[in-house]
């Protein structure tokens, strides 16, 4: 059927010509589908973290990895446990050498809800962490994992070992009972006998030539700010290097003598 010519409508009333790419059948323009907006995508769009996460999680670990390889991460979990219990202890602890420190630890031990449990976890967690860090070091030593290219990882690890022992030393004073007080005096005196920096280190720890009122708060600051900060940073560096260089293969493993199949798989 022939169509009649359209009446000469004014321009603003005429239907707009279709834009290129618009649907022919008269439906409205297709709205571009918003890609799934989840919290993860929102964060990833702004940080581009997903490649890093993929790099961290989906890297391959050599075959033959056994339970000895979990000692390092177990040490880290012991440290995390120390951090969490330490935060709760710090909520009640007062580094006051004139009696407040002992009184606050007595309050934690005897009165606070689950206080003795959290304090005991912190106390025994220290021992567990030290055992694990020594076992981890023994594993690395006997597997020759400190050799090229992982020398720097080893050095950072030894620093972490010394910092962990320093945590044990500085934390021992904090309950401020007789045992911790006198053990720390002897310990600092031993430090003073060390070569070269020994006397300076002892003066730094005591906040002067004598054990005084500020010594306790200094030990507290070192124990809960200085060393944990350094440990967190060094664990980060340690993990970065482990991820970057790859977990060392068990030393007894040899490459399978079938390079052809390897080639084809790649």
């Amino acid at each position: 059927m022939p169509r009649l010519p359209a009446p000469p409508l004014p321009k603003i009333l005429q239907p707009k010509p279709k834009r290129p790419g618009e649907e022919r059948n008269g439906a409205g323009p297709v709205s571009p589908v918003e890609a799934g907006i989840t919290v993860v995508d929102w964060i990833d769009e702004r940080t581009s973290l997903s490649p890093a996460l993929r790099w961290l999680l989906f890297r391959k670990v050599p075959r033959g990895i056994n339970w000895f390889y979990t000692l390092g991460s177990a040490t880290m979990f012991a440290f995390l446990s120390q951090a969490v219990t330490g935060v709760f202890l710090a909520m009640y602890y007062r580094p006051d050498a004139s009696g407040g420190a002992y009184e606050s630890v007595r309050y934690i031990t005897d009165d606070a809800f689950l206080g003795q449990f959290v304090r005991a976890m912190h106390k025994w967690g220290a021992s567990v962490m030290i055992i694990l860090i020594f076992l981890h070091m023994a594993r690395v030593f006997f597997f020759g994992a400190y050799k090229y290219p992982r020398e720097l990882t080893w050095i950072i690890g030894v620093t972490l070992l010394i910092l962990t022992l320093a945590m044990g030393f500085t934390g021992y004073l904090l309950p401020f009972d007789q045992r911790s007080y006198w053990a720390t005096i002897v310990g600092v005196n031993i430090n003073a006998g060390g070569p070269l920096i020994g006397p300076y280190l002892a003066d730094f720890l005591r906040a002067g030539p004598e054990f005084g009122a500020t010594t306790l708060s200094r030990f507290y600051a070192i124990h809960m700010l200085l060393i944990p900060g350094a440990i967190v940073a060094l664990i980060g560096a340690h993990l970065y290097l482990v991820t970057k260089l790859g977990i060392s293969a068990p030393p007894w493993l040899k490459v399978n003598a079938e390079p052809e199949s390897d080639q084809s798989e790649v």
Partner: protein
Amino acid sequence: MNQAEKEAYLREYSILKNEGKPFFPYAVAKDAVMAAITIGVIIYLALMFGAELGPKADPTTTTYVPRPDWYFFFLFEVLRVMKNVPMFTPMATIGVPTICMILLFLLPFYDRSPERRIERRPIALAAGLATIFAIAFLTYSGANTGSPNSVDMKPPSSFTAEQVATFNAGKLVVGQSGCLACHTIGDNGNNGPGPPLTHIGSIRSAAAIASTLRNPTPPMPSFKGLAQQYPQKFQNLVNFLSELQ
């Protein structure tokens, strides 16, 4: 390791790595099990043994044994042995623990062989096992050293019955006062920071000993409090020390 050995290692390692499984979830699963065991052990120890709190720190009386946590026993034992055995005394002054620490740091730089299998690294194996046995032995003997709270000494046979009585009474006070934390008396106690007291009676008079106990040079604690509260104990202490000829 020379350049060729380094490259050979990297090549072999990249093949071994490619044959492996992804870190997540395979290694993560093992780590998670181990983390659960670790936390479980910590909770078990916390529930079983708890955390005790000793008497409040009192800088004026040293009636308490300075004991470090068990993981420092080996270090304290090393220092005790080095100070008390004349053969090792020069080693104490150059800081053997410091040297061990430096050796530990520099391990990858002096052990440069490419061999990683422990059965083909006899020196490393021997050194590693020797270190483990040394630390275990020192921790054990550090844990079992005689308590600094008791003096194991017999009065000389020339003493009269009265002298023996003051000797034994004073011996008890010395043990209770923790003198042995810093002084040696015969075979007992730690050598340092204080001077040995084995022959103090022939060096100082009883009056001089008593005045030193009241007004000592730091870091020695003052026993003025003891002299005021328990004059008899203080007298026993002075008598015992002046009998150490």
